[in-house]
């Protein structure tokens, strides 16, 4: 299973004074089971891109293939695509509407035409996957804390059993522990269920910690598409397009400038710690 974007272009308000070329010749392949981080400053085209992946927006030119099938073909089943590519919008808790947690989560699978038994099964499982305890399932979703609401909203998408899960800034507004909890759960889901995850994030630290590959967007174009180390090695370029690298990248490069021979590739605290300790041991032994 894979998603391929072939020369995808998208323009808003074509022919008017507000015409804007939001995606420019985007070519990408997202492989089955990948964990991808999508970064770029506000207005870089990230949200436009992800809305193309489940057919909410249609490319002005170019094609998207889902498992080798052209999604713009007349006989392509768009409804099925939307079942397979689950999209969690920013602040998804604003979309909660039912009277109880379980009813809200069941809404998606119910609309998929499943039997009540399957609906329940999928919904309970999804709630378990996001760490919502059973004693909360009959509560009103509006009585929950911010982090809990967000997890219920994500469960609503998971209950539809998507093959691809796209999350647009799932941690915005959460406290640090809440951020870690959600990302750990997503990472666990990715490993256990082998679903493809696309994480849109403004936190370079989070992206460095979790994803296999980073896609960097700027002005509607894909600027980089590579493993975190390689992308963050270009931290000076990233700064010119309104982004940055994790703080540890700056530490490692700063050390290097001071003549301390450490590998500047470290992008997480753990990697940086190991690298600096290795240098320290070497220095002590040599000294």
């Amino acid at each position: 299973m894979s998603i391929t974007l072939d020369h995808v272009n998208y323009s808003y308000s074509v022919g008017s004074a507000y015409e804007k070329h939001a995606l420019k010749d985007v070519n990408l392949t997202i492989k089955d089971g990948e964990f991808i981080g999508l970064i770029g400053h506000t207005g870089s085209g990230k949200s436009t891109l992800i809305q193309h992946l489940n057919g909410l927006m249609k490319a002005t030119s170019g094609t998207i293939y889902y498992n080798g099938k052209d999604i713009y073909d007349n006989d392509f089943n768009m409804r099925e695509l939307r079942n397979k590519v689950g999209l969690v919008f920013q602040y998804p808790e604003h979309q909660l509407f039912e009277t109880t947690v379980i009813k809200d989560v069941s809404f998606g699978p119910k609309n998929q035409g499943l039997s009540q038994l399957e609906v329940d099964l999928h919904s309970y499982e999804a709630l378990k996957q996001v760490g919502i305890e059973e004693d909360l399932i009959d509560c009103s979703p509006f009585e929950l804390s911010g982090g809990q609401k967000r997890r219920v909203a994500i469960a609503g998408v998971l209950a539809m059993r998507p093959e691809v899960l796209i999350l647009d800034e799932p941690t915005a507004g959460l406290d640090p522990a809440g951020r870690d909890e959600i990302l750990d759960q997503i990472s666990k889901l990715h490993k256990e269920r082998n679903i493809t995850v696309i994480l849109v994030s403004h936190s370079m630290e989070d992206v460095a910690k979790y994803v296999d590959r980073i896609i960097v967007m700027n002005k509607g174009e894909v600027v980089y598409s590579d493993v975190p180390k390689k992308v963050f090695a270009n931290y000076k370029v990233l700064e010119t397009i309104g982004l940055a690298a994790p703080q540890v990248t700056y530490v490692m490069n700063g050390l290097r400038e001071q003549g301390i021979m450490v590998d500047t590739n470290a992008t997480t605290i753990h990697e940086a710690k190991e690298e600096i300790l290795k240098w320290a041991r070497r220095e002590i032994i040599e000294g």
Partner: protein
Amino acid sequence: MGIIKAKQLVHEYIRRDEEGNTIGINRALDDIDIDIKKGDFVAILGHNGSGKSTLAKHLNAILMPTEGTLWVNGYDTKEEDNIWNIRQSAGMVFQNPDNQIIGTIVEEDVGFGPENLGVETKEIWKRVEESLQAVGMLEYRSHSPNKLSGGQKQRVAIAGIMAMRPECIVLDEPTAMLDPNGRKEVIRTISQLNREEKVTVLLITHYMEEVIGADKVIVMDEGKIVMQGAPREVFTRVEELKEYRLDVPQVTELAYELRKNGLAIPEGILTVDELVSEIARL
């Protein structure tokens, strides 16, 4: 007395059933004592549901104390007659810039506040210009706000508050919806207002990197103040912060880990440069 002073401040959210009987009480603020000096830059940290936003709403008399007293610029928030004075003393900036901008042109939006205070037209224009200058948005004065970036919108919202000449600005997670650049812009603007215009700043945030420039950090948990001090003092207590569902900046954590592994690095490292020079000194 400081510009903001709370004495045994308590706030309870009371849930009632259809007949009006109490079915639950949530003590969101529990015996808060604070005293914030004029001109200070104070950051408030705490996990979701710890009481930060409830406290912020008290500072603007949106909520009133269940018990205890809160004085803003000397005005007791329980007295209804003080509400306008309080709201003029403490301006609020919220998370979502789109919910706070009402004008169709930047300068109109900034002028809305002083206009409502009955300020003279000539004076309004003067304030609009000064406020936009202070947040670095003067060149956008005749733009439409909906074409601005998140960081720029948030700076316009801050200018709108500045134009009312408050003594104090309360910002409730002003950067939560912004990208890294927008976040930097807003924090830089807030620090500058604090330094140059001597405005007292209360910044509520979940981003630990944003509070290292504050004079004082207050940590809240379950409606209580559990830690307070200079950022350098608070951020040395890494394990304790994690228990309160918080974190420290990535460099601080790296320094802490290196120290735990036997490297002679001092406590309370807050910036990349500090850590680099400490390691270079080893």
